[in-house]
Every structure is written in structure tokens, then in C-alpha cells.
């Protein structure tokens, strides 16, 4: 575990936190108008809460939890489509585990399973392909979900299905792309973000070049960040350093994983199998142009949306649900009217409460109690 522990060294964390406080003082914001840094990726949100990173920071810096949790931005209508597909008697519907509990307008996949639908949890799309081989009389549908991180493995599974001539496998494609989404956030009215921690694993696939417009056009610094707590702190330090220096650049803190030009083989397979949709509906954010992909015509026989009728209805989120405002960073999870009351991890109303990478679930699980007041007697330890 050495390779992991060295990225969690508390002494290094304290030193970095001290430097971050120093930079924050130079920038000179107060607690009433703190620096707002968005961590785009749900993996970062999880790390920030799991390791208690926010508590190492001064109150003049605030993380805004971005849209990079694919389960969280899945609109209700798409979950209904999943349920409709899963309830077909000939279908074995396969999905990653964390999508099972996302509420649809009528039910979640977990509930559909309990009622008799054949829904199975898999760890990889290749497991779904194996299921198709093992069950030639059934139709196996894989619920393709996620940003560019998981897109290549889905694409390669489709290519593999074609190569092996497996015709009872198809993909319900809900893959989404990160760049149009960041652009939509930057274009949204009242946007006050000062900088970004860029998604590490997406960038492993797409590289760092696609982010250049953020620095050049929008004049915001972005640092592609790793997922260990020291990665997050160091990336934040790099963002602040840019602000102090008056620079706006795309920097790569996660160089041990992210190559500048991404992964060519992965990108080629994505290009081969997928094409951009005109628009894709996001929970809370609405419709964003070119933010989703679908299966190309050449692979139509592996596209569940072409193979089966899909209701494809637009379902509004519950009125009380403020997932959208949380996703845009306009409010904190704790400020949502139903947080922790009508909406909890046991009975989620909004999807941000479902996935462990969702901002609300992270708040509920790790920070439901504001421990900052309890820490007063331990201030010496934190600020040492």
C-alpha cells in the first residue's frame, strides 16, 4: 500500500495547507466572498469529504461540487427507460451497482429487480458480454454510463461483440462528455467560479488539450488533479498559485496517469463506435448541446435504443428537489429544503443523494454534523 499511503502523508498535508493559507491571504478574499474552486469530478468530491480536506482549509476557500458524477446527472426519464427495458421478459439488464438505487419516476432498477425483472450487477461491460455468450436465448443489455472514463471500455465491448458475432448483446448508451458540460457551467448566468480542479480519469483518456478554451476564452485556471488527498491539496495550491501570479493556464498535477494527448487507442475505439448526440438531458442542468453520445449507425444492431422501443419521456424532477442548484454550485446540499428530511440515502429523492460520489450523499454521510464548532478546542492541531 506504499504507493497509496505516500499520497496521504499528514505532515505533507499540513505543510501544503499552510502554503495554501499563505496564498489565500495574498489573494485577500474574506469569508463572505470566498474563492470558489469547482472540483468537476465526483471522485474528488468523495476524497474531499472522506479525508476531511475542507477542514484543513481557511474559510476563504470553498469547494463547489461539480457535475462529474455520472449517476447523479442521470435524468429520471432515462431511469424509467432502463426499467422499461429491464422489465421485458427476454432481457437480462446489466448495470454497474451504483445505478441500481437511482430513483425513476415509478421505481428504481433495484425495485424492478425485486418485482421480477432480471437485473444483474456487473463490474465490467465484458461481464455483460460473457452473460450474452452464456445465455444465447436471452437478450443482454448493458447500461452504458459515465464520461470519457468508461466510454472506451464500452466501445471496445461493442467492437468485441461484433468480432465474436454475438448478436444478443446490446448497449443502452447514456455516456456523456465533459467538455460541453464545463462550458455550460461557465456560460450559466451568475457564474462566480474562480478556478477548476479538472477530472483526472477523464483526462487520462482525452488528455489536457481539450481544456485550453477554459484558460484562453474564459480566463479561468484549471489543474487536472489526482484523487488522493495530497493530489487534491497540491492541485488546489497550483490553482491558487496561478491566481496569485495572474496566470490562467491548464496545468496537469496528475502527470503520473494523464498524458498530454490522452490515450489514442481508447479515443480511436470511442470514435469508431460513438457519435455526438445533438443534445442530452441532464438532471438539474437541463438539456446541454452535444453533451452525450449515441451508437453509430454502423453498429445499430448493438444499440438497445434502436433494437427495442424505449419510452424516452422527459420527466421533471420532484418539485422539492434542488439537485440542479446544488450541481451548479448555487446552494450547498445542507441548504436544500429536503436534505436529510424527505431526501436521505435510504429514500433518495434526487440522484445526488444516491451515489457515494454525489455531493448530497457525501455531505449526509461525512459532514451531516458540522464538526467545525466541535473542533475549536483542537484548533492548535489543525492550524499547526
Amino acid at each position, binding site marked *: *500500500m506504499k504507493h*497509496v499511503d505516500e499520497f*496521504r502523508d*499528514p505532515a505533507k*498535508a*499540513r505543510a501544503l*495547507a499552510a502554503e495554501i493559507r499563505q496564498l489565500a491571504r495574498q489573494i485577500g478574499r474574506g469569508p463572505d466572498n470566498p474563492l470558489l474552486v469547482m472540483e468537476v469530478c465526483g471522485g474528488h468530491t468523495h476524497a474531499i*469529504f*472522506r*479525508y*476531511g*480536506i*475542507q*477542514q*484543513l482549509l481557511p474559510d476563504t476557500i470553498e469547494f463547489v461540487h461539480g457535475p462529474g458524477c455520472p449517476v447523479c446527472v442521470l435524468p429520471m426519464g432515462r431511469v424509467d427507460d432502463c426499467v422499461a427495458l429491464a422489465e421485458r421478459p427476454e432481457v437480462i439488464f446489466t448495470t454497474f451497482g451504483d445505478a441500481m*438505487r437511482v430513483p425513476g419516476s415509478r421505481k428504481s432498477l433495484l425495485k424492478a429487480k425485486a418485482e421480477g425483472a432480471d437485473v444483474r450487477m456487473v*463490474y465490467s461491460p465484458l*461481464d455483460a458480454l460473457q452473460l450474452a455468450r452464456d445465455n444465447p436465448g436471452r437478450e443482454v443489455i448493458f447500461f452504458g454510463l459515465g464520461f470519457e472514463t468508461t466510454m472506451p471500455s464500452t466501445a471496445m465491448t461493442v467492437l468485441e461483440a461484433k468480432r465474436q458475432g454475438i448478436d444478443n448483446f446490446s448497449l443502452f448508451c447514456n455516456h456523456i462528455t465533459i467538455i460541453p458540460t464545463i462550458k455550460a457551467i461557465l456560460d450559466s448566468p451568475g457564474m462566480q467560479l474562480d478556478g477548476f480542479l479538472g477530472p483526472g480519469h477523464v483526462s487520462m483518456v482525452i488528455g489536457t488539450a481539450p481544456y485550453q478554451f477554459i484558460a484562453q476564452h474564459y480566463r479561468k485556471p484549471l489543474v487536472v488533479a489526482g484523487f488522493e*488527498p495530497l493530489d487534491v491539496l497540491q492541485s488546489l495550491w497550483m490553482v491558487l498559485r496561478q491566481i496569485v501570479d495572474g496566470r490562467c493556464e491548464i496545468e496537469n498535477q496528475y502527470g503520473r496517469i494523464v498524458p498530454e494527448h490522452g490515450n489514442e487507442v481508447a479515443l480511436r475505439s470511442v470514435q469508431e463506435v460513438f457519435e455526438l448526440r445533438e443534445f442530452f438531458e441532464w438532471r438539474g442542468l437541463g438539456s446541454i448541446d452535444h453533451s452525450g453520445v449515441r451508437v453509430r449507425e454502423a453498429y445499430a444492431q448493438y444499440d438497445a435504443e434502436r433494437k427495442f422501443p424505449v419510452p424516452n419521456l422527459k420527466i421533471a424532477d420532484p418539485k422539492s428537489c434542488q439537485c440542479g442548484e446544488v450541481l451548479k454550485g448555487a446552494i450547498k446540499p445542507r441548504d436544500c429544503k429536503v436534505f436529510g428530511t424527505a431526501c436521505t*440515502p*435510504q429514500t433518495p429523492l434526487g440522484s445526488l443523494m444516491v451515489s*457515494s460520489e454525489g455531493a448530497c450523499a457525501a455531505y*449526509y*454521510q*461525512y*459532514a*451531516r*454534523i458540522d*464538526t467545525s464548532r*466541535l*473542533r475549536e478546542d483542537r484548533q492548535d*492541531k*489543525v492550524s499547526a
Partner: protein
Amino acid sequence: MNDFSANDGKRRPRINDTHVNLSHGSGGKAMRDLIADVFVGAFDNPSLSALEDQAVFDLKQLGTHGERLAFTTDTYVVDPLFFPGGDIGHLAVNGTVNDLAMSGARPLYLSCGVVLEEGLPIETLRRVVESMRQAALAAGVQIVTGDTKVVERGSADKLFINTAGIGVVPAGINISASRAQPGDAVIINGTLGDHGAAILIARGQLALQAEVPSDCQPLHELVAAMLRACPDIHCLRDATRGGLATVLNEFAQSSQVGIRLQEQTLPLREDVKGACEILGLDPLYLANEGKLVAVVPGEAVEAVLAAMRALPAGRDAACVGRVVAAPRGAVILETGFGGERVVDMLVGEQLPRIC
């Protein structure tokens, strides 16, 4: 009905079938032969040999062990049946022994009810029963009554076991989840999450190469040693499903206190830690089958730890946290990284059918 006593006490027929079929649950000769061949020989003891429909105990005899009876039941449905470090038979005995032990009781007698799926290899059943025999012998308990049912193929998965247990609590012991108070210390007897990780890896769906052994073991002797070192143990529970996090939340809520954990003091096997990293699981919530969580008065910590470390089941015992007044009903983890976070009850299920 005490089916296990349904032989003639002398001749023990040996069945020729290789697989369980519906006649083994019919109440007729095939069932008698299965019970006599597979169970009675293994669990042989005077109460079972009495050939009655129930086990009967002498109250005076029980009273020599203490003043109060402890009674518990648990059902075991683990998949796979056999895993590194144990099997469903070990679990069925040790799990119930441990549930008794957590009251401070000396475990004495168990029952054993089994649900068999048609088609189960008799050899598999024999292996499980042999494990139960060994586990009962090691734990010093007798399996004194039982029941066998067979269900059609598909109506159950291979083999389910229920065990109930009776133990006697010695005088002067008062263990309860509601007795934690500020100043107390939290102690565990070893590494966290071994059983959960063992089952996950043994299912073979993850292509992980590691082989983590389950920690399945009886804890009553460890508890007895702890009580000798400190008769005033406040809270005691075995950290099975839901792991350490769940038990501590139960203590915090029942006692209306806060509990602060120090992440760096939590004992973890390197391979369990690695599996958790890869799979995104939190070892605080992973199941254990041979781990207890004790809350003891602060001044008793060293004595209890010394007593624990003298036994194999407590070799890696450690003090991992302390009880504080606030926030009431919550568990806070001080992370190794220098931050802190709330440790909540487990929501949903990390893994199905782990015990």
C-alpha cells in the same frame, strides 16, 4: 421435533445416495437415515442420544455457571459455502457462540436447523457438518437438538443453517449498548473487514489474485479473559454485518454519547486495505466474524489490552477511539490525513449474503 435423535442409538445406517433428494425431508426412512448417518454421529452427546423431541436441561446444573440465561438465534445463508478461513458450518457455530459471548455469557448449548436444496451433494453436507462438529468442540458447546428440511431445487440455494444458543451469564456482569460514557475507551481485538473481503474475493467475480482468510473464530474465551481483567466492561458487541461503523453508531445512539475514532490506530491487513482501495469499499463497514468491539472505562484500557493480547484471538487488540460527550449519537473519524468526518450507519448493502 428433535429429528437428530431419530435413530435407534446403536446401529448407524450409512446412506448410499450421493445427492439430497426430496425423500430426505419426507419424515420417512430416508430422512431418518440421513440424520442418523450425517448428523447424529458428528454431534454425538448425551442429550442428543436421549432420543427425545427436545433437549431438557437441569436448572440447578445450569445455575452453577451463573444467574441469568442468555438465549439467541441466527440464520446462515453465506455464498459461497466454503471460503478461505472457514465455511458455513464454522460460521453457524461461531456466530451464535459469539452472540452469546457478547453478553458475557458462557455458551453451553446450540440447536441446528438446516434447509437443504434438492440436489445438494451429500459430501458437501458432510463437510459442513464436520466443520460444525469441530467448531462446537473448539468452542466447548454441545449441539443438542435439530431439524432437517429439504426443499425443491431452486427453492433455496444449496444449504441454509439456523442455530439458536443458550448460555449462562456469570453474576456481576452488566454489559449493555447503553452504558458507554465520556472517558471510556473503544477497543477491538484485531484487523477489520477480513471476513467481508474474504467472501468478496472468494466469489471470484473480481479477478483479484489475493486470498484473504476469513477471521471466523469463537470469542467467548477472549471475553472471559477481558472480564477477568475488567468486570465492569460497559459495552460489547461482535462487529459482523455492517462492521465496526455500525456497532459504534449503535453504542453512540443507545448511550447518547459521541465516539471519536483515530483512523491511524485501526488495524488493517494490507491485502484487505488493497482490496478496499480497488473496489471503493470502506473497511469500517466490512463484515467480521471473529471481531468484537468493547467500550471499557478509560483506566482499564491497559489491563484489558494485556489480557486480550495474551490470547490468539486478541493478539492484534488495539485501542482505536474514545467516548466523548458530544456530538451525541454520532461517530466521528479523525482521519490519518488530519481532517475528520462523520461515520454513519451503513446505507443499503455493500454485499449480499455474507454470513
